[in-house]
């Protein structure tokens, strides 16, 4: 019929739908190199730090109680999370700030003018991807270290929920950190600012608060410290241990054991607090996305 029209009927059922928009966002996520650089870095850093800690944990020690062995297994598999969370945060910011920075967001919102379906789809594919990458990283780390640990009197029990739950939890944590960072990126709409804010919240604020707690011994500061995203979310990838074995656990467990804070979170409590952080950042971000000019 014309020079520009498609083959007849090819476009007849073209319309917006949740599935279509999810597919679009998945195409966008997987067709940027930064996505795969971040994914590769998460897996590599996780394995690297796992191997490092596996090489030293209980190296010259003797036999350990089962709980201590499980705690060590979890610590080795998830120790990298303290670093990989920063990459997950960078990816989370980039996914949205990159669209604002390049003008891509105008193409996105021109195609999906109600905006929120596109933003939520973007968030969903980001969360799923980071969760899967986190799982791959944890599994790879576990596999890479499983051969080292038995020589140090640590027998991994991967089928024990106390062991696999915090290992899976590390992947959940990474996904939630990416989501929180995404919300921050959506608020700031600027890559440099978004990354600075996200890393400030995850990395710098805990250090400052830690120093403040050390200087003042103020209980309220310890309480704030315990509900920061990284501390609260850290419970997701921490072995829930009896007090006696606390000394061998990861950073999260140690802090809880020494703290005099009123706020003591377990995995589920930590999850709840982290989700609350996400809600606090995401709701205003979504409202602003709908209202602001693109």
């Amino acid at each position, binding site marked *: *019929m*014309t*020079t*520009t*029209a*498609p*083959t007849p009927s*090819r*476009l007849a*059922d*073209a*319309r*917006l*739908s949740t599935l*279509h*928009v999810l*597919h*679009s*966002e998945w*195409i*966008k996520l997987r*067709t*940027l*190199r*930064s996505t795969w650089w971040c994914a590769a870095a998460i897996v590599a850093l996780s394995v690297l730090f796992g191997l490092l800690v596996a090489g030293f944990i209980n190296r010259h020690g003797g036999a350990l109680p089962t709980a201590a062995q499980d705690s060590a297994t979890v610590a080795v598999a998830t120790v990298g999370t303290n670093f990989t969370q920063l990459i997950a945060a960078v990816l989370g910011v980039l996914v949205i700030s*990159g*669209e604002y920075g*390049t*003008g*891509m*967001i*105008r*193409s996105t*919102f*021109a*195609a*999906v*003018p*109600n905006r929120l379906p*596109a933003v939520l789809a973007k968030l969903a594919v980001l969360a799923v991807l980071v969760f899967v990458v986190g799982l791959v990283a944890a599994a790879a780390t576990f596999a890479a270290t499983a051969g080292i640990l038995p020589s140090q009197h640590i027998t991994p029990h991967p089928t024990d929920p106390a062991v696999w739950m915090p290992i899976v939890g590390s992947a959940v944590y990474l996904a939630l950190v990416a989501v929180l960072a995404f919300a921050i990126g959506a608020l700031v709409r600027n890559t440099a600012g978004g990354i600075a804010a996200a890393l400030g919240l995850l990395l710098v604020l805990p250090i400052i608060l830690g120093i403040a707690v050390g200087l003042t011994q103020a209980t309220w500061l310890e309480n704030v410290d315990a509900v920061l995203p990284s501390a609260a979310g850290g419970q997701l990838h921490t072995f829930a241990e009896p007090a006696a074995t606390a000394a061998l656990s990861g950073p999260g467990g140690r802090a809880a054991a020494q703290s005099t804070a009123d706020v003591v979170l377990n995995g589920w409590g930590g999850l709840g607090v982290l989700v609350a952080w996400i809600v606090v950042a995401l709701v205003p971000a979504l409202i602003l996305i709908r*209202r602001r*000019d*693109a």
Partner: protein
Amino acid sequence: MIRLERLTKRYGDKTAVDDISAVIEPGRVTGFLGPNGAGKSTTMRMIVGLDRPTAGTATVNGKRYAEHRAPLREVGVLLEARAVHPGRTAANHLRAVAATHGIARARVDEVLGLTGLTAVAGKRVGKFSLGMGQRLGIAVALLGDPRTLILDEPVNGLDPEGVLWVRHLTRALAAEGRTVFLSSHLMSEMAQTADHLVVLGRGRILADAPIADVVAGATQGIVRVRTPDHDRLDRAVAGPGVTVRRGDDGSLEVIGATPAQIGDAALAAGVALHELTPVNASLEEAYLTLTQDDVEYRETQGAVR
């Protein structure tokens, strides 16, 4: 069809678009002309919901753009500023946009072919020239085979061949009965492409008329006259609403009288005429006449995004 009703956009105390109403009809190319910063891009962004109007409404085919079930089937839009992630290839950019509506990959290949981008489909957009970026933007606009096209400065950065291509493309799209709304600050391009003009200056509509009327309206009743006897001609044609001014080259310009009236008056007064020419201004002159108040604005304010 695009309908703007009392559309207004203010940024703080700056009014970018000031209470404009217009209907952009299907079946013809409507040029949207105005100096940089006149509010053309802002108006176009409001039509597709990227900017939120301070007041008023813009509808496309009877509904707000966002209310359509398949927005890309209704409106294809090329935005002035680049709206593409430079790290993605052209084909992947198109696939991502197409996927939002479940548009098949075959259509992506089609628009790549239509816009002459097939050979560079796998190249990252960041490496594209301005002209290739424009072609990609037009490819996106064509994806949904839309009934309405909104193209903001489509010939920007295109080589002469590309300019010609856009001219033929927009004329063909309008001939098929589609609505084509095309902005430019280049009068020459408009003169060859548009059937109808909406002229915008300082956020207000200065003209909304067929292109011939805009030209005629802005140069109404100027007649160039040459005569050896300026003073007697002056007296002969003098009357209410008629002014005579002297041109640089010794000619006279009579405003407010037709050539017939001037000729009759000269004959009655016995004044010899060596030339009697109605002046047909170009679109360029018409445009400058319309927007002359806005030139200062353009130079001091820059572009209002």
